[in-house]
């Protein structure tokens, strides 16, 4: 099943090893292929995102993990040359179905980006924006309630409660990222996709974010792309290892990090390349 004498540049992958299935799948992806023009970025990836658990996507730069993540809420739609095929299901519903509006999908599958990107508006407006555009509230009091609870869930409320009118861009990097998480939570999505949410942050801010992710999984299904193997080990229950657009291995996080089956996975997590 695996080829143990590998030159990583000439590796031929045919099948994913490990277990891609989850008992309680929130999202299931089968044979996803992504093309940028003529170039194929993702080859036949199948995996499940277990409900109320954190799935980490790891792999060397350019392996397609971010591309894959962005397919899950159709953020790739904005790129003209990008084409996605395969079955991508959210609660058994095809998210690329013809009648499905990506706006509705993105309200259910939120996203936190690599670089904190608060809107150049007040902290309050940042968090309230999603609720406002979707018309989730009927009154100012309800909106206040959503803003406060979202900020609280993101662990930011105590730091900013006295300056909700200040611009969100004036916060520190770690606070900005938590603000972005609060903004995502405010829409009450079912799935949160995180694209290297801590890569621009210092270790202390990273630790806070990781703790937050751990708490958030009680309510949300989370997929996180990360470059840090320690982070993946700390926050996730499942880990998927990508290599050159293919899903090499997937399984329980503890298994992947203690007993990787595939040589490529082993090389990557032991730091031999990547």
């Amino acid at each position, binding site marked *: 099943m695996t080829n143990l004498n590998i030159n990583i540049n000439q590796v031929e992958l045919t099948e994913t090893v490990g277990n891609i299935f989850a008992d309680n799948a929130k999202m299931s992806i089968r044979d996803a292929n992504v093309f940028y023009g003529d170039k194929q970025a993702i080859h036949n990836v199948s995996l499940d995102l277990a409900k109320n658990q954190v799935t980490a996507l790891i792999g060397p730069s350019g392996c397609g993990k971010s591309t894959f993540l962005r397919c899950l809420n159709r953020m790739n739609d*904005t790129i*003209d040359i990008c084409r996605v095929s395969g079955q991508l299901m959210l609660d058994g519903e095809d998210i690329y179905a013809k009648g499905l509006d990506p706006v509705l*999908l*993105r309200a259910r599958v939120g996203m936190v*980006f690599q670089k904190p990107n608060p809107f*150049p508006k007040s902290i309050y407006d940042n968090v309230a924006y999603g609720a406002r*555009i979707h018309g989730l509230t009927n009154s100012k009091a309800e909106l206040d309630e959503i803003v406060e609870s979202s900020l609280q869930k993101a662990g930011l409320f105590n730091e900013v409660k006295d300056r909700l009118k200040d611009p969100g861009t004036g916060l520190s990097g770690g606070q900005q990222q938590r603000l972005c998480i609060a903004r995502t939570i405010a*829409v009450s999505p079912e799935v949160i996709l995180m694209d290297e949410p801590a890569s621009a942050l210092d270790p202390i801010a990273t630790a806070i974010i990781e703790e937050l992710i751990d708490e958030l999984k009680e309510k949300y299904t989370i997929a996180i792309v990360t470059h840090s193997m320690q982070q993946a080990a700390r926050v996730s229950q499942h880990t998927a290892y990508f290599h050159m657009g293919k899903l090499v291995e997937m399984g329980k996080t503890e298994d992947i990090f203690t007993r990787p089956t595939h040589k490529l996975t082993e090389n990557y997590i032991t730091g031999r390349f990547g």
Partner: protein
Amino acid sequence: MTNSTTNNTSSTIKTAKPSTQKSTKVNNTMSSTTEKVALSLKKRHQKENRFKAFGLFSVLFGFMLVVILLGDITSKALPAFHQHWVKLDINYQGDWLGIDERLSGYELTKQLKGANFRAVLKNSIYPMFVDEQTPKLSRRDKRAVFKLFSTNGEFTIRDALLASPEDFNQTVSIWIKLDDDVDVYLKEGFALGEAGLRINEKQAHWVAKLQREQRIESRFNVGFFTASDSREPELAGVRGALTGTLLTMFVTILLSFPLGVAGALYLEEFAPKNRITDLIEININNLAAVPSIVFGLLGLAVIINVFGLPRSAPLVGGIVLTLMTLPTIIIASRAAIKAVPPSIREAALGLGASKMQVTFSHVLPQAMPGIITGAIIGIAQALGETAPLLMIGMVAFIVDVPTSIVDSATVLPVQIFLWADSPERAFLAKNSAAILVLLTLLLVINVTATVLRSKFEKK
């Protein structure tokens, strides 16, 4: 100083690693690098200093030109802001007016409207100029005397009498404007016989006499701002042209800003990137380079002749200037929209905002400062535009102040062009004053834009 540092560094390196041959080699290359860098440093600094000096020179040169231009215009314009008036003793005699002396009340006012005030003016002033030098005025003298005063003198005295009909059959002192030639003579202080002087020795003598009697007074020229164009320089003002400019700009801003911004937003955010949009983009860039008079021809051929909109109207002028301004606004707006970081769009899209919501609540506010800057460049260009307006008839001699966008009107740049074409010397100052008014208008628009922009930037 540079040299000593270089030596120090190299010697430290040498003493630090004296043992192996390899390190000496590294050493050599390192010290030679330092030396080479040190050598080239002087040249690089020289280059930088040369460029800085050149940049400073160009800034100062540009500043100097602006100062010279403004100084020249202002100094030439100043005389236009005041004007000489003369006090005349007017005798409203019934027989000069050609109406019955016994009339009064409503009947009098009615008759006064058609009365012969020119005769009153003439008969009142001729005696003032009889002295030992000219005991009796000849016909020529009379004409010369009459020419000293503005042609609207008779209307001034008519209005004065209509305002207070009780002065009928009385002699009262009334201030009227002097003719522009006398005005220029008094302002510029010509020596008699000098070229360009349009009054003769006798007239100069009479003016001196009026001055001796303290009948001449220099006043602030209110008429310059309240009157419209006139053939007589002492009566001409900028109000008509200024109103025309404001109306035209109103139409231009109202059309070009929303159209330009909508076009730019569509092309940047919504339009598919294909050959057709490429073609559109190339053509917009080409339009920006089309000579403005061509837009004027288009306005004449299509807007006036095909659609039948009125000639000389600010509406048509505004449409033509919109055509001219649109490419500038679209190009600047597209650049500003492109500069909005994609992360902001992604953040909003990721929350489930629709494209429309992303565009209007994030992209547009962020791009607004840049869009306003572009719009101001375009509108300032339109404000100073003359050529296309000539083609659509806004060059006509229009005495009435326009009251709507379909009235006949002219604009300030065209007014300046018209006055520059006039032979009367007094128009020189008027012209510079009109330029000052135009520049002030430009300044007002720019300041407004800057205030608006900083408001958007704060948000």
